[in-house]
């Protein structure tokens, strides 16, 4: 008699704090855990950051660079048996443009989809969007300007099951019974009161990246390392992130099971360029040179971050050594610049208050000690008194948009793997409500330039404008440390070419085994 194989279940911390919609195209920041695993994106990145065709088997760009044609794999279906069509992809973005609630900027800035802004502003009908289902398996996208990196952008384009939406409306994605999936996982259980989602292998999935394990439990109550580590020690969970205090102890006990993951994220100081004293470029640049980033990351932050010398993290496409080498610690130059601005040794400099937002996750351990370090450095080197204010996320964002303060500590994590993602933050009033014409011009050119080399050169020039004008002070790039059960194996558990382990996302869960 054959013994049935034991179901392999992997339990990991989830990162969702709300249980709104399990639909990435409805909300990204407040999505339920698993939203991006149950649906199939057009493309995806593997652990070496190679762009891989997923729902799209191929794509091509028109001669004028404005129109893209994606061919969808003919064998793909929804988990209820309905065929997955180009129409489901078109509907997904129409839905995001009209009732989606937080990612419109992405499809406008990164996607550059024709008429996007007019449709989200309610000035044009949704049918005028640059999207077309040519036939069941052919999808056409038109952009306002050439977007050479569109295939990377569409890695976050997941289909929405129009047939379910027509039947159940918005609420199709709030309920396990009405959720259907197009990807490698189906929802088995969703406990909303602690945002825990159990996903099971989709038996009917025919696309690439098929899971080897049977189930994944994304348990958001394990999100805090303070809870995750005891649960890991007691054998209740297969992986947990670590906070600074836990690293040393866990390294001793589980030396071979500690994985370092890169986070393509940058923490930087941002200013209100119209408010004294930061309306003076020399003041801003004084701060740029007054920070010993190596000391900050190796002592205060105990290696949970690496120094940031540019807005792009090392290893991110487009990262430039020419840019990075300028962000040095030079206290003499910093003092000189401050004196030049009229504040020798900080005399007469008004007290300032840096605002940062409360965060969970990796930045929760980084931002508070970093703010204190900056406070002491600025006092010591420049004679400036800087107070610190921690704020809830919403209040911080609201404060920054309404320009209620003059200096902010801002974190940003990438959304797609192209330099335009980071440079877009400062483009035309993007995140910081300022317009620097020289910068905007260069970024705009870089975004549409036909070759990669040209693009990188233009982005480099754009960042030079940022440095010359002291727009931001790059501080740190977080890295995360996880401890992983020795039972886990597979391709996802071996490091990539740069020596980092892949981040826990769609790739990992489909390239994971458990003994």
């Amino acid at each position, binding site marked *: 008699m054959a013994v049935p194989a034991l179901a392999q279940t992997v339990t990991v911390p989830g990162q969702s*704090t*709300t*249980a*709104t*919609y399990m639909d990435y195209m409805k909300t990204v*920041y*407040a999505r339920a855990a698993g939203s991006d695993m149950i649906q199939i994106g057009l493309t995806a990145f593997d652990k070496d950051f190679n762009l891989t065709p997923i729902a799209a088997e191929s794509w091509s760009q028109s001669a004028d660079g404005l129109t893209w044609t994606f061919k969808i794999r003919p064998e793909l279906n929804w988990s209820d048996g309905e065929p997955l069509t180009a129409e489901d992809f078109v509907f997904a973005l129409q839905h995001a443009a*009209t*009732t*989606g*609630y*937080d*990612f*419109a*900027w*992405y499809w406008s800035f990164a996607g550059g989809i024709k008429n996007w*802004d007019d449709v*989200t*502003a*309610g000035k044009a009908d949704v049918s005028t969007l640059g999207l077309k289902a040519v036939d069941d398996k052919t999808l056409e996208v038109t952009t306002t300007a050439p977007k050479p990196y569109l295939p990377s952008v569409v890695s976050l384009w997941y289909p929405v099951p129009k047939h379910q939406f027509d039947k159940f409306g*918005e*609420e199709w994605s*709030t*309920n396990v019974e009405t959720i259907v999936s197009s990807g490698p996982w189906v929802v088995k259980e969703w*406990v*909303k*009161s*602690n945002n*825990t989602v159990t996903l099971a292998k989709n038996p009917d999935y025919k696309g690439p990246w098929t899971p080897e394990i049977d189930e994944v439990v994304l*348990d958001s*109550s*394990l999100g*805090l390392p*303070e*809870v995750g580590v*005891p*649960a890991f*020690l*007691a054998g*209740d969970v297969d992986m947990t992130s670590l906070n600074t205090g836990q690293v040393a102890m866990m390294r001793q006990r589980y030396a071979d099971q500690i994985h370092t993951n890169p986070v393509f994220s940058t923490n930087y100081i941002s200013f209100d360029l119209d408010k004294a004293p930061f309306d003076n470029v020399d003041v801003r640049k004084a701060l740029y040179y007054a920070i010993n980033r190596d000391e900050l990351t190796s002592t205060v932050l105990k290696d949970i971050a690496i120094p940031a010398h540019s807005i792009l993290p090392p290893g991110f496409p487009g990262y430039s050594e020419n840019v990075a080498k300028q962000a040095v610690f030079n206290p003499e130059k910093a003092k000189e610049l401050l004196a030049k601005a009229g504040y020798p040794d900080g005399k007469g400099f008004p007290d300032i208050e840096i605002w940062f*937002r409360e965060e969970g996750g990796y930045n929760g351990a980084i931002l508070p000690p970093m703010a204190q370090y900056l406070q002491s450095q600025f006092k010591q080197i420049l004679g400036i008194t800087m107070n610190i204010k921690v704020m*809830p*996320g*919403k*209040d*911080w*964002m*609201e*404060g920054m*948009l309404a320009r209620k303060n003059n200096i902010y500590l801002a974190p*940003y994590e990438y959304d797609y793997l192209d330099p335009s993602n980071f440079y877009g933050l400062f483009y035309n009033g993007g*995140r910081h409500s300022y317009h620097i014409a020289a910068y905007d011009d260069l970024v705009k050119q870089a975004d549409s330039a036909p070759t990669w080399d040209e693009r990188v050169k233009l982005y480099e020039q754009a960042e030079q404008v940022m440095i010359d004008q002291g727009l931001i002070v790059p501080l740190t790039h977080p890295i995360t440390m996880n401890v992983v059960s020795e039972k886990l194996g597979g391709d996802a558990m071996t490091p990539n070419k740069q020596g980092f382990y892949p981040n826990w996302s769609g790739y990992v869960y489909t390239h994971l085994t458990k003994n």
Partner: protein
Amino acid sequence: MIVYLIKRLLSVAVTFFIVSLVIFLMMHAVPGGPFTEKDMPLSEAVKAQLNARLGLDQPLWVQYTNYMVGVLQGNWGVPYQSPGETVISLLQQAWIPSLILGGSGVIIGAALGILIGMAAALRRNSWIDYLASTLSVLGLTIPVFVISMLLILIFAVWLNWLPASGWGKPERWILPIAAYAAIPLATYARYTRSAMLDTLNRPFVTALRAKGLSERRIIFQHVLRNSAIPMVTVFLPMFMGTATGSIFVEAMFRIPGLGSYFVSSIENRDYPLEMALVLMFTIGICFAYLISDIAYAWLNPRIRLGDDAK
């Protein structure tokens, strides 16, 4: 007594409306809204469309009136952070773990606290008295998340007797109940000890002893009853506070209870859930005090309620 009850119920209703109005106004005075995003700003058009869908584009007084009319009809709205269900169904699910764990924690903690307090009062200045004082000082001073952490380390990680955290099987309940019991135990041990000592020194106890009553009858029938008033005062409000869940205990033990919603509803500007939590807590506290007051009269017939008091 009936008149007294009616008056008290009316005052509960008035309190309910005052609290609802104050919280509603405060909630909307806090900057930001349910859709002010943390990472990237929303376009004005999108925000307007979302606000219109939730009725947040109407003047405040209209929103308040609509909300209260709904509440009086039993419709508490839909939580923004879980749009697939109603506030009531969300609270119904989340209430159970909090009530089971927090409620048992208070009852067990209070019962043990009374026993320890009695033992301490009856054996004054003995080792048991010192132990009781140490326990109650520790219980009141060590933060509950540290107690939780220690319980997990000792019983789940080192001894491996119990699961570290999670909800479901009853063996997972033991550690969080122990954590919840710490404060009631400490509080009750102290209250009982001092109330008992106070009563034991009163002349009527000497009189009872002179009458030749057994020590057991004196303690259980007379001293304990006479010492009970301060204990009753603390019990129900403490029960309300604990049975609605502690954000720390629930986070440490991964309990899908109410506790975290008190914070997340404010953080996410989840107005319907925030209102519901505050209003239900208000009603709970009002009734806790009403029941305590009635219990006083029962425990001590010299206490008269309402007009009878004149």
